């Protein structure tokens, strides 16, 4: 009897609380202001990147094309379409270059030949424009191959002085009518990790009933790490306005075969909103609960 009373009073309390609280779900859009004030610029030049890591993806060309295409559709700035700048060559020619980097000069190839088969396939699939249209005379309209030396983020350091080369960027700025310049470094490296992973497994009991139970297993997994650094340069003065480092990684089962380019786009997809929110205002959609 006492147990029944307790149960009934519990139900009554829940009903009372539910009845007293009126709530309404409402969709909201939170506007996020851009981090950089780019109102002074009408044009943006994604100049190119110093890239390293796996040979399966050309980090320089793919990142340049992806950012240009995103900025074209999701920002108010006019995107300058031109060949990718050979930043590694430029870095080699300017002071501050290490001896070993100078000893192995990079081979320059035209931008249209610099991409792999995977890159072309992916773009054909997405219907993206692949042909670069040079406007005016770029200082060096060619794309270097990645030197084998850049396999680790530390290998990028000797080249990073190029971003502080005010004179060089000012010259590029004059060439393209003082745009906002986007450049930086991109490391895309394969990696593998083994350890305990929790996954769900279907089991059937003696009555044939299906159940899903969590199972912890030791697994070998492999994937990629993407570490881009985006540098924003004022084309009028050649100075760095802002820079941001990112790191994303993805792991797959060792028996799963995922093309490097697919992983690259998967990881870049995660970073693109943060990149865009630096330049243009974004709206984040969500739902909240209004209370009475």
């Amino acid at each position, binding site marked *: 009897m006492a147990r029944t009373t307790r149960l009934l009073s519990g139900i009554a309390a829940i009903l009372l609380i539910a009845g007293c*609280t009126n*709530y*309404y779900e*409402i969709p*909201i*859009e*939170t*506007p*996020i*202001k851009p*981090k950089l004030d780019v109102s002074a610029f009408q044009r943006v030049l994604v100049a190119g990147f110093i890239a390293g890591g796996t040979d399966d993806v050309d980090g320089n060309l793919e990142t340049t094309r992806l950012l240009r295409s995103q900025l074209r559709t999701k920002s108010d700035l006019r995107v300058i379409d031109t060949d990718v700048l050979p930043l590694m060559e430029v870095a080699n020619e300017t002071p501050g270059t290490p001896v070993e980097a100078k000893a192995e000069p990079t081979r320059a190839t035209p931008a249209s030949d610099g991409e792999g088969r995977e890159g072309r396939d992916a773009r054909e699939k997405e219907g993206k424009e692949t042909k670069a249209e040079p406007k005016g005379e770029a200082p060096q309209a060619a794309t270097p191959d990645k030197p084998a030396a850049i396999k680790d983020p530390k290998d990028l350091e000797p080249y990073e002085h190029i971003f502080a080369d005010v004179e060089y960027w000012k010259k590029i700025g004059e060439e393209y009518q003082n745009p906002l310049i986007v450049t930086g470094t991109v490391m895309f490296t394969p990696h593998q990790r083994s350890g305990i992973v929790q996954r769900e497994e279907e089991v059937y009991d003696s009555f044939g009933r299906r159940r899903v139970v969590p199972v912890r297993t030791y697994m070998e997994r492999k994937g990629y790490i993407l570490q881009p650094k985006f540098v924003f340069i004022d084309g009028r003065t050649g100075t760095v306005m*802002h*820079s*941001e*480092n*990112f*790191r*994303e990684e993805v792991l797959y089962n060792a028996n799963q075969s995922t093309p490097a380019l697919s992983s690259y786009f998967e990881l870049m997809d*995660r970073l693109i909103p*943060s990149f865009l*929110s*630096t330049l243009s205002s974004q709206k*984040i959609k*969500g*739902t*909240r*609960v*209004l*209370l*009475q």
Partner: protein
Amino acid sequence: MRTRVLTFFLVLGAAAAPLAADARADAKKQVEFGIAVAQRGLWREAIYRWERAVHIDPKYAEALNDLAIAYEHEGDLNKARVAYEKALEIEPNNALIKQNYELFKEINDRTTRKDTQDGQDNQTP
């Protein structure tokens, strides 16, 4: 003498209770109207109503919650945070306010991290 003081406080308490109830009733009307206009997309008007509700009854957690949502929608994240925190101070166990605040924090943390981390790593595990 003691009896007189006791009587005075009893009378004061008895008079204050209906006043508080009146304030809540007035504030509730404002909140209801605010919800109705917010559902029609008139967020500025909703803010005005919910600000009035909080002015009338500063301990009205639900009004503070609604106000926080409206500030969020307008992109005023600092005001939204203050309002959410006041609401949770009054009703720390309100699951719905907590849920709204957690969702808000996700966005707010992202923007504040952006503001403070020039040149630092921005990592997602």
